[in-house]
């Protein structure tokens, strides 16, 4: 529409149009979202000021956590956040991509819409409900049926011993369930955006369904699926309540994948209301700042990947 107006202007002098005040007004209102994003980061940075000044970069390499002596380091929390998120991805990605392939297929709309609705409802369930379920059902089950057998048979392998009901692995398990809908929904859209022609050509050449999917569709959709995985990673990094309820809340780098640990978000959730003085709350806000900067970067990267994948495929 803009171009139509532009070309008309070239032929005859355009009449003076009144300024579009509605456009200005809505543009100003629409600034809320970007402004909020900037203000959130700025305010957290300002509030974390005392801690940033006091500890400097040593905060990001320290491993202590002692509010009494005011000796703080972020490494165990960062480690816990990254470790749970990556383990969750390892569990969720194969399942999520398989579900996306099934949901993106043509035909059998009835069955597929039921399955799709189910996956979307998985996203609607509040995090605290996953938390209580993980605490009383999933974690005890996984302790008995996964962790104990694994450590009995494979315990000699490093990092596979010391089962615990609340720990890194069980937190990753519930995270995997929680990121599955994001992973599936975005991957499905990316796979659907693969041009029909590619699929039809492969079938015309005599490829089976599996060969078409594995050698044609998935390679074409790979950048977008990678974007979906990164987007899910962003969700996993920031997830708070369910993880807090099952990770065991121990501030150390865990010796095995089953051991109790801590994440950036859980430390804040557990300790912020009890933090006294000026330095302790500031330290927790700095953890929040680290968390938000990492997730923002990850999300931005993922969004750009998904968008470029979709626009490239669409051309």
């Amino acid at each position, binding site marked *: 529409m803009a171009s139509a107006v532009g070309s008309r202007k070239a032929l005859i002098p355009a009449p003076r149009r009144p300024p579009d005040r509605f456009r200005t007004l809505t543009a100003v209102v629409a600034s809320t979202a970007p402004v909020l994003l900037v203000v959130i980061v700025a305010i957290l940075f300002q*509030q974390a000021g005392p801690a940033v000044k006091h500890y400097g970069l040593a905060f990001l390499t320290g491993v202590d956590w002692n509010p009494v002596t005011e000796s703080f380091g972020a490494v165990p929390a960062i480690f816990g956040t990254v470790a749970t998120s990556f383990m969750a991805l390892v569990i969720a990605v194969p399942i999520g991509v398989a*579900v996306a392939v099934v949901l993106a297929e043509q035909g059998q709309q009835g069955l597929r819409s039921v*399955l799709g609705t*189910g*996956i979307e409802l*998985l996203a609607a369930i509040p995090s*605290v409900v996953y938390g*209580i379920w993980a605490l009383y059902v999933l974690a005890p089950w996984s302790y008995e049926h996964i962790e104990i057998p694994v450590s009995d048979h494979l315990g000699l392998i490093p990092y596979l011993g010391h089962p615990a009901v609340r720990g890194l692995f069980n937190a990753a398990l519930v995270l995997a369930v929680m990121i599955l809908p994001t992973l599936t929904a975005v991957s499905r859209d990316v796979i659907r955006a693969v041009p029909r022609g590619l699929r039809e050509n492969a079938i015309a050449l005599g490829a089976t369904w599996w060969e078409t999917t594995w050698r044609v569709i998935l390679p074409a959709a790979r950048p977008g699926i990678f974007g979906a995985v990164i987007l899910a990673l962003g969700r996993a990094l920031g997830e708070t309540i369910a993880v807090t309820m099952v990770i065991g809340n121990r501030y150390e780098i865990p010796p095995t994948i089953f051991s109790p640990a801590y994440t950036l978000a859980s430390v804040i959730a557990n300790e912020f209301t009890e933090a006294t003085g000026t330095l302790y709350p500031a330290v927790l806000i700095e953890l929040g700042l680290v968390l938000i900067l990492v997730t923002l970067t990850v999300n931005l990267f993922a969004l750009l990947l998904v968008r470029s994948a979709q626009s490239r495929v669409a051309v």
Partner: protein
Amino acid sequence: MNRNARRGYMSGASLGIMYALTVLALIPLGLVLWFTASKGLSSVLHPEFFTNVERPVGVPGAGIAHALVGTGILVGIASLMAIPIGVLTGVYLAEYNYARWAGWVRLASDVLVGTPSIAVGLFAYALVVAPFHHFSGVSGSVALAILMLPIVIRTTEGAVALIPSGLRESGLALGLPRWRVSLQLILPAAIPGVITGALLAVARASGETAPLLFTAFGNQHFSLDPSQALQALPLTVYHYALQPYKSLQDQAWGAALVLVVMVLVINLLSRWVLRRQIRLAGQL
């Protein structure tokens, strides 16, 4: 021929495995629903669970009335902030989608969806709680509104973009100014989609715990005052679930059941509204 048969089997088997994985992915949904229903039902069956407030451990007749009302107030105030801003932003994105600023707004709202809710809670704490020196419902609503905003924006944009441009063009051809075309012609036609977005945002906000921990904070008593600490349903689930007392854990399951039913009903409702919208837009 033998090789081709093997390829066929391989293809069929992998299709079967993928369907099996899809079913596997849905098992947690079934398990979560089953356990909240079976463990929460005994609490929910007592009518006083919905009319009474917190009682000391061991005293029968405890309820979640204060949490239900608190969640209502928190989400209500958050909606008053997020929905008007979100709808206008969505209209802007759809009506002026060629504007360069629209691209930035869209990116910002997509990034905002993935912002950790605990960090938003810290922000609301620094902005509202710290200057007034006490926890308040309003600060919780601010945090929830920030989480609702991007959902309202993107669903409104989608709904408005669905309206055929013929409607817009006929309005403009009749000499209506842009704002009347957008707000009195396009927006009413897109209203079911806008409602869908608002409902989804309300569902998301009612289930959030992390941003309320140090904003609304929780309250053992019945309170209607948003300038003071308020209880919320997810806070009840979180705090009671971690208690060693069976009666409190049962109440946590009961509250979780109420929460799940609420969120699922809102979601299914919004789905139904959206389907109507798509049908209506097809008729325009």
